[in-house]
Every structure is written in C-alpha cells, then in structure tokens.
C-alpha cells in the first residue's frame, strides 16, 4: 500500500461522515481551504458543510460541547490542534466525559472521539511538542488509542468513531507524511509480521530467528523501534521482537506477555517523558504477570524528564533516539542489572 497516514485518516473521517449522520467534526481551523493545522480534515467541510465546524479557540468548552452532543445522540469527533492543548480540557475529560457512564449508573454513553497530534522532532518547542498520553491512561472510563503507520489507520479511526465510549485517538505528528506499513503474507520487510484480530490490535514485527528481547512501543516510536531492530540484527546479531500497541488504555498485554515469556527481557520505548509514563504501567504489569520469565530488570526508554527545547540539537538530546533503544536492548539481552 502506498497510502500516506494523513490520507488514511482523512478517508476514515470521510467514511464516518458518510455512513453515520450523527458524525460531526469539531475543532479549530478545520474548514476548507485550510482543512486543519495538519490538513487532516481537508475537503470535508466542502463535502459536509453542516457537519464540519471550525470553532473558536476554546478547548475546554469544545470538550464539553462535544460531550453534550455525544450525550444526546450525536457522534462528535473533536480535533485538538496540538496534543499539548488537551491540558485545557482535562477537567471536562476527567470530571465529566470519563465519569458520566459509570457515575450515572449506565444511563448514558458518551460516543466521543478526540483526535490530537502529539510528539516532537519538528522543532516546535516546549508547548507544541509533548507526548502527553500519560495524563490519559490513568483515567478510568477512557479508551486511549495511539495510531502508528503499522496499523490500518483507516480501520482504527473508524473503530474509535463507532465506539459508544470516549476514545482519545493520538496521532504522532511525524506519522502524517509517512506511508502506511502493512504486512503481507506474514512478512514486512525482513520481519515476520503478526497482527491480532482485535479491534485495536497489537502489531508484532520479529526476526525469524529466536529473539532475546521484547520491545513494546506505540505511536511515533514504532518507527524508531523498527530501525533499532534492523540495526541490532545487522550490527549486533541481536534479534528482537517489536510489539506496537494501538490501545494504551485499557491495555491488553496478552501478546506482550507471550513475547516476554519467549524472550525473557523487556524494553518499553516511549516518546513521552520517563517519570509516570505509560511505560511505568507496562513494566509494573509485566513484572507482575511474568516475573519468573524475566532474566533481568525491565528497561524504559523515554524522553528525559525535561522541557522539550525548540532548537533541534537540544530537542534531540531530550527525546529518545534509536541508539537509546539499541543500548537498552543490548543491556536487556545481556540480562545485566542496571
């Protein structure tokens, strides 16, 4: 397939608008000819003028308005222009959207999707480069999905829109211009390819040989993990399994646990800052479920606990790189402590 990720997402939105009259897109600058800051809604306001709404700059209210629409039978898809701005709506997310179904004792559902780009490596600086999924995964009632080029983004986004519960759909900014990478006949490039058949599957890329480390990752880091796998194979004769999650919460670690039982070693690679990251949750679960399989401590690769600088060389020093993954894998493969 030679579909760019941006096009896949655009097509999914178009399909949702076509299939379901209740679908609505809301967000800042969505309308044509602009079509959103990253152009993901391009063409849609022209085709569906009443259902693609460019809004004022009011993130907090947009979350609430979308939730109100969802509570009364609409199926809104809210775009938050930069993932950094979800912070403005977290009260609506935490104390309203995520709570309604359970707090109101199942009298309501909130079929709301929040799409938002996250991630750095574009030099956008401290307030436009963060990966903040860590803020979302611990909120009971939310589904958190992270797309990657290895997932069928069209299908993934459509599934999120079809869900009757609130879903955050995170799109790494670098994804947009990349091509979809999908396996064929169980292979993708030099790797064996496997994808579960769940709604939000975990994609596995692994060497045909026996692997000594399981790397779990998602979103924009999938690209780096794959590069690490190639480097490790070529330069270090170290084979790894790369597991690319699509749903971070509630997370299904079954494929990862099976992998860790095979490899005996775990590395989590995330773009967000280390402390309190999604990786911590994964490590806590895996060490609990597969304690005796682990030859050594699980390792986390993540951004430094720091502000993401604007200057590219400084940004590179803060964000996790391919080398950080290869280093962690080599240490994990060796089973050394620290």
């Amino acid at each position, binding site marked *: 397939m030679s579909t760019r990720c941006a096009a896949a997402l655009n097509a999914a939105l178009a399909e949702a608008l076509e299939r379901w009259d209740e679908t*609505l897109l809301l967000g800042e600058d969505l309308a044509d000819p602009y079509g959103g800051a990253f152009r993901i809604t391009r063409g849609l306001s022209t085709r569906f003028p009443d259902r693609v*709404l460019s*809004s*004022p700059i*009011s993130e*907090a*209210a*947009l*979350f*609430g*308005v*979308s*939730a*109100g*629409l*969802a*509570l*009364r*039978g*609409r199926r*809104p898809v809210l775009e938050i222009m930069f993932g950094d701005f979800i912070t403005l709506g977290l*009260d*609506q997310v935490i*104390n*309203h959207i995520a*709570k*309604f179904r*359970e*707090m*109101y*004792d199942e*009298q*309501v559902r909130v079929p709301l999707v929040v799409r938002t780009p996250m991630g750095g490596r574009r030099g956008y600086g401290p307030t436009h480069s963060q990966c903040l999924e860590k803020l979302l995964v611990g909120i009971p009632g939310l589904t958190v999905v992270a797309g990657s080029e290895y997932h069928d983004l069209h299908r993934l986004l459509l599934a999120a829109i079809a869900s009757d519960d609130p879903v955050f759909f995170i799109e790494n900014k670098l994804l947009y211009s990349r091509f979809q990478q999908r396996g064929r006949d169980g292979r993708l490039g030099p790797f064996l390819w496997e994808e579960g058949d769940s709604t939000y599957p975990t994609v596995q890329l692994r060497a045909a040989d026996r692997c000594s480390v399981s790397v779990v990752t998602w979103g924009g880091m999938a690209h780096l993990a794959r590069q690490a796998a190639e480097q490790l194979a070529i330069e270090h004769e170290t084979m790894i399994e790369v597991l690319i999650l699509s749903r971070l919460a509630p997370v299904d670690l079954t494929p990862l646990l099976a992998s860790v039982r095979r490899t005996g070693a775990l590395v989590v690679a995330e773009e967000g800052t280390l402390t309190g990251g999604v990786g911590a949750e994964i490590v806590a679960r895996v060490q609990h479920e597969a304690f005796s399989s682990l030859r050594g401590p699980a390792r986390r690769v993540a951004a430094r606990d720091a502000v993401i600088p604007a200057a590219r060389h400084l940004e590179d020093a803060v964000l996790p790189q391919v080398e950080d993954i290869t280093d962690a894998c080599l240490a994990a493969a060796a089973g050394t402590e620290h």
Partner: protein
Amino acid sequence: MDWRERVAAEGSRGDRTGHFEREFYRGIYLIRRLEETLLELFAAGRLSGTTHTCLGQEANAVAVAFHLTDADVVVSNHRCHGHYLARTGDLEGLLAEIRGLERGLCSGKGGSQHLCAPNFYTNGIQGGIVPLATGMALAEKQRGSGAIVTVFIGDGTLGQGVVYESFNIAALWAAPLLVVVEANGWAQSTPTPRAMAGSMRQRLEAFGLPCGMVEGTDALEIHRAAGAAVGQVRETGRPAGLIIRTQRLGPHSKGDDSRSPEELETLRERDPLPRLAASLDPEQRRAIEAECERRLAAALTATEGPL
C-alpha cells in the same frame, strides 16, 4: 395541552380559580420540606457525604419547569434537588439516591450532586455543565427535536471561564439554550460583590445572549419571566439568559453558614413561599401541605436503608 402547559397558560393569564397558584405552591412546598428534612437527617447523623439545599430558591425551579415540555432538557449543578423535583416529581428516587440506595436514580453512585434521569443531568464541578448543555442544545437542534436545554448556574459560577467560552459558542452556532443564573448573592462563603466585577447582565449580552432579569421574589413574577425566556429560546432557536435575584436561606452545604442573623432575617423577608402561601385559600393550602407531608413521609419510609 399537557398538565404543565395548562398550568403555565393559567399562570400567564392570571388564573382566577387559583389552580395555578396551588400547583405552584405544591411544587415549592414539597421541595422546601425535602430540603429541610435532608438537613435534619444530616444533623441527626443519618446521612453522610454532603448536600446543598435550595431553601429559598425553590420558586425558580418550579417556575422554569412549568414552561418546559417533556422533551426539553435540564442541566443543573450542586444545588439541584429543586430542579430535579420540579422537573420530575420523583421524590423517592432522589431521596434514595441521596441515601445511597440501590433504588436511587444512579444506584447511589452519584449522590446528592451527580444526578441523571431522562432529559436531566447534574454535575458537581462549577461551570463545567455549561458547555455540556450547549452541546446538548446543539444536538437537539440538529436532530430537529424542537427541544430546548435549560442550564441552571449560580452567580458565583460566573467566575468560571468555560461559561463564557460556551456562551460564545452557543451564540455563534445558535444553540437553543436557556441559561438561568440563580443570583443568590453568595458563593459558599463569598458575597458576590467580592467575586464579580462589572455587570452580570452585560456578561451574557457581551457574548450575544439577550438576557432577562427578575429582581423581585414574587413567585408569579418569576414565573412570567421564566415563560418569556423559555419562549424566546424556543421561538428564536438561539440562546438567551435569565438572571433571577434570589436568596439562599440555608447554609451553603450542611452547616456552614457564617452570615449574621440579621442578614438572614432580611433574606427571609424575600422568601417567595410565605407570600404565595398567604395568597391561597387556607384550607386548600393546608390540604396541599398535608399531601406533601404524606408524600415525604412515604418516601422516607420507602427509602429507609443503610446510612
């Protein structure tokens, strides 16, 4: 014409038979007694958690409810018992919820300030309900249901920015939303002038919401103003506001009232309830009160349960 419409119509005609006044009184009195009872239960240690009673503000809830149809939606806040009762009459479900029972509206999960029933929603975060209500109003419009959404907020809640974001969006996208500000002059322990600069009414108008105002506390006056406001939203399909100067006669929540006895006395003079009571035939009035007491007693018995 259903019951509510009939009563509303009678109210605006200045009903000669007193039927309207009686129904109005029945609504207010029942809420009043529920709220008093809740405070007693708390004082007796027979309720846990917290509660915010609407003592003194009951007429607002009843007046607005008289003008709504079943399809209309009401969104309310921490001080929501009156809005709920006026809207649904479901005394038992409410009491059961506050008492934490399985048969409560939300099986006891929500409690006093997190209520949900068909076309009725509340939440305990000041201001957060306003964008919700805006979205709901847009949904009704898109579905062509003809329903309007009424959201109740307190004057203190005008401190929350999301309220203005929502006004703006409601006006821009023509949401059939009625914003009722129950201006009781206080937010918890803070008098409104210490928390509000500028002009309350202008704050709605500056964002494109025409805004009515009721200064007096005559129940019928509130009823007329509510009718005008509801009617305006229904006819124009656009948002509007209504500010009601009202009075909180009880504590903010359970026992936290630091206002002086004199101040409370002045507020009690504005209480719509005794005035409405005085306008009724004494016998009919006693009959209404007795009926309400019976209902309350029955609901209390029915919801006797773990505290």
